[in-house]
């Protein structure tokens, strides 16, 4: 985990979008 990237806004904006898209997708997942 690169300490510089942890607070580098452009990278963090991309991580925010990616993480939330992933969380939304798995939260919508229902086995039945």
């Amino acid at each position: 985990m690169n300490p510089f990237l942890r607070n580098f806004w452009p990278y963090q904006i991309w991580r925010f979008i990616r993480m939330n898209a992933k969380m939304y997708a798995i939260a919508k997942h229902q086995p039945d």
Partner: protein
Amino acid sequence: MNASSTPSSGLPRIVILGAGFAGHTAALHLSRLVRSQAHVTVVAPRNRFTWFPSLIWVGTGTMSPEKVWFPLAPVYEKLGFEYVDGRAESIHPDERFVEVRRADGSTDRLTYDFLINATGPYLNFEGTPGLGPKEGNTQSVCSVEHALGARDAYLENVAHMKKGNRRRFVVGVGHPGATCQGAAFEYIMNVDADLRRRGLRDRAELIWLSNEPAAGDFGVDGIEARIGGKIVTGSSVIDELFKERGITPILAAGVTGVGNDGIAYDRVGYEPATLEYDFAMLIPQFRGIPMKYIAADGSEITEKMTVPSGFMRVDADYTAKAYDAYSAADWPSIYRSPFYDNLYAAGIAFAPPHPLSKTLKTAAGTTIVATPPRTGMASGIMGRTVALNIAEQVAGHPAIHHESMSEMPAACIASMGHSIWNGSAASIVMMPVARDYERYPEYGRDIDLCELDVGLSGAWTKRMLHEAFMWKLQAKPGWAMIPE
């Protein structure tokens, strides 16, 4: 005692005990599934829903308590449900009623056709001598009142540090079999961030005291994720964070007592020891809410209906087995009592079949085990699953919806600083929570879905989840579009 509260509508009656993540989510889903086909009553004390994930911020004084709770009664009025401010004292599954003690001290008998036990945890401070904010020597962030107490004690220590004094903060769990390490981890990280902001970090010693076998275990046997093409473990990430922030971890340790002069603990591979402290925030062991189960003949059947820790037995495999023999199939999938097909337990109220993490034993004989957490997301999913199945049963169909902890995902955003400008959080996604080595032979989880990330974006996500769920849980327009 009041007269038996049975509606005269002739509609099936659904009673929900508890309005935390599981109970309240079940109520929300029942409102869209069976609104006009059933009479729903929710029994919960204190007329409020608390957004527990933000209590760590109340406990460091960075969020006001009003922002983490809302009154339940107006929400249930909007949903067309009955709300009872009280607690269940006994369940009578043969006769299908619950004895409830209302806030005014009166008792009431609520009959039901379907019952959801979502009563959450009993905070077992008595399980560790000297633990707890009321009669003990430690703080907690398990309720709004506890978090406010922790905040005051924390700020008192901050005041001492401002005068040039050094202080030792011990944060973690206060029982060898405790769970909820994630909340304690967030708390110590937020204390660290707050002390840095105040320019006082060099006057504080921070110690992480936990029953986890390794850092980053969190009671779920840790986490792995692929980062930059390499598999990275949660243990290595949390270890790195502790080193960076100067936090000393004491792992595989069970707290056995807390006196004015120190915290006694027993640790795997070490002799029992005592740790001096100025401030301690230790999460207690969780047990089932004390509640009796009574058969038709008046005899008590609590032992049959619950496991020794007081949590309710459901459709899990409770056969005692070795760690290597644990199976994904052991976990309950519909959260229904094996004895009554109209009685469910969701969230923390259901009894897990076994831990997810390894059980350890100290030389002195103390059993150390980080018991499985049932986080807000997991509890919400269970509440939804139970609501779906009750709706099926109301319609005369079998309960077909399933989502065990070996099928469900979990997302956990562990705050490490509140600020949206320079805060941070560890974002963890795992699928499934309970490892399934038959389906995913290598790691027991779908490694492509697992995520582990540290950075500012986690602080934004944590804040966004707070706002989104406070909206959803108040049943505001579009709530159903926000998944559990």
